[in-house]
């Protein structure tokens, strides 16, 4: 194993990690602030990918697809929050699990009706379609660097929003004490809607930028949902920092696991989770439970 090989695999791991972070951060935010465990979160990832495929077909441009797709997914997020999630704020987790499970079924069927069940691919824009040659045979696709770059940018943006803006303060305050936020005159319902739509948009965006490299297929939402659960559990529920660290760990574990231990690759990420939990049942940055 030479250095360029290690470098490429590390980049692959980071890129997957960044992507996971976009999905997991929404999941953890929604749980931390709204107390909602949302199984349908992965569906936004899938919706994003299909929107990207569909809009890219229609407009012929990936950029236009993303530009149009993000507001659509925000809208979808808002609709889901207003007409579904809103009934769950005071309900037991069991009911949250079941209702959002029902939502998954609905999303999957709507997808089947709108876009069919076929695997679809999205073209990488021409100027990003090249690769950077590293050795005689090894090269790294530019588009993957682009994904990492965009995800990192978004993660940084998220950090700034959460740490530096009044909205961010309100979000953190809401995660700590929902009622007090209300008692200070801030509209918690609006905050919930914003957070949910933000989470949905992040997941959908991840689905969009990733569509050209992963292709677009029916089960993609659930696949990433469960890995995101692992990320969130490792990082500690409600912790963005934890989600980031967890995403990086899982990104690396999955990439190197699938190379070094091909037939055990599926189990590697869960083994990592089990180890972390043995050490800290509440996750790396979770509050004691």
């Amino acid at each position, binding site marked *: 194993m030479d250095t360029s090989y290690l470098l490429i695999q590390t980049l692959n791991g980071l890129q997957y990690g960044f992507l996971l972070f976009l999905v997991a951060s929404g999941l953890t935010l929604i749980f931390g602030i709204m107390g909602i465990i949302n199984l349908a979160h992965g569906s936004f990832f899938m919706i994003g990918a299909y929107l990207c495929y569909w809009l890219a077909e229609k407009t012929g441009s990936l950029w236009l697809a993303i530009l149009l797709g993000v507001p659509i997914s925000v809208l979808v997020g808002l609709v889901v929050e207003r007409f579904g999630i809103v009934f769950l704020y005071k309900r037991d987790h069991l009911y949250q699990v079941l209702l959002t499970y029902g939502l998954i079924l609905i999303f999957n069927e709507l997808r089947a009706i709108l876009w069919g069940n076929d695997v679809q691919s999205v073209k990488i824009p021409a100027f990003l379609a090249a690769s950077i040659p590293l050795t005689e045979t090894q090269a790294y696709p530019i588009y993957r660097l682009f994904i990492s770059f965009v995800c990192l940018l978004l993660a940084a943006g998220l950090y700034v929003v959460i740490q530096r803006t009044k909205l961010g303060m309100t979000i953190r305050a809401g995660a700590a004490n929902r009622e007090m936020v209300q008692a200070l005159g801030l509209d918690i319902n609006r905050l919930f809607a914003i957070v949910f739509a933000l989470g949905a948009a992040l997941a959908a965006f991840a689905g969009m930028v990733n569509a050209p490299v*992963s292709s677009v297929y029916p089960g993609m939402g659930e696949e990433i949902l469960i890995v995101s659960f692992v990320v969130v559990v490792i990082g500690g529920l409600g912790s963005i920092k934890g989600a980031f660290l967890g995403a990086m760990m899982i990104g690396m574990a999955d990439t190197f696991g699938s190379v070094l231990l091909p037939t055990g690759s599926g189990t590697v990420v869960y083994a990592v989770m089990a180890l972390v939990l043995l050490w800290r049942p509440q996750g790396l940055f979770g509050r004691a439970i």
Partner: protein
Amino acid sequence: MNENGLTTTRRTILKGAAAGAAVSFIPTRFAIGQAAKLKIGLMLPFSGTFASPGVNIAEAFKLRIAENGGKVGGRDVEYIQVDDESAPPKAKDNAAKLITKDKVDVLIGTVHSGVAEAMAAVAREEGTLTICPNAGAGKITGEMCAPNIFRSSFSNWQPAYPCGKVMINDGLKKAVMMSWNYPAGHEATGGFKENFVANGGTVVKEIFLDFPKVEFQAYLTEIASIKPDGVFVFFAGAGALKFIQDYAAAGLQGKIPLYGSGFITDGVLKQAGAAADGIKSTLHYADALDNAMNKKFRPAFKAVANKDADVYAVQGYDAGTMLIKGMDAVKGDIKATKALYAAIAGATIESPRGNFTLGKNHNPVQDIYLRIAKGGEETVLGIAHKALADPGKGCSM
């Protein structure tokens, strides 16, 4: 089989039909004045990854029946279609429903190996005539083989096996094999490896990734670092397209030659375009085959299906031929199982792929062609292996 007898008898009684055993020459059910329609269950994927093969098989099968005047063994037919969604867990229930609830006489299906195995299992238990128009699972004509189970397509081993020799002939001795981690992938790469190693080659790495994941990047990186003489893959459908594109994007196209079981390019060649240039593959069919049947079949299929025929369509078409040959021999009496099965097993099937016969295990004995892709077109380089029969491991019939 004890159980088969029990089931058939029981259903006959329940239906209140004339005692079946005594009148074995007359079709068991009558509509007004004529023989009852032959119920054909088409259990195929009409959605999902394998929707396109599923549709092509169904269209071509119906085309063949239509060419025969819409009759099989003199009886009109009625189709009952079920989308199997390529989901093995649903397969048992779907097949059982077709046989025990809808009471089909013949079962045609399917594309996905796992689903086909489950179908075959039910068909064995219930004793229903079943023709598999694609799924190459070795078991179906191996350890699970049965008098009532036939295949009009191939075994996974079959088209891959000759490719081992092809690579050696091209002077390549060190190969990486890659496929999805599922039985079809294991069987195909196994066939390749058998022939490759026997002729002096070495497989330096076997890569199996989660089915149906198409995230190849980490593995392509690995291939690039290993630098083998050549790569053999077994992928199909959208996954194959994605692989061809990623292989080119990773900069490996032209540097490390790519070989595959013919499914790597079949049906995706147009979309892959230049990225597929230079891929050599072996298969029991090629669109460009130069024979009379093929020249007649392709436009006919295009006329009904409104798209180009492919290997799947051929297999569906041939399944129709097999059924017709068998049923004609028994004049439409599906209950005359012995004669029916013997007729199918002994027939020579005139096919767009060239004529073929069935082996002892009811799998086609057929020629495997070597093809090369260039500019979105496939050229036939010749026959890689003449009249290749599947070894039918584990079949005792």
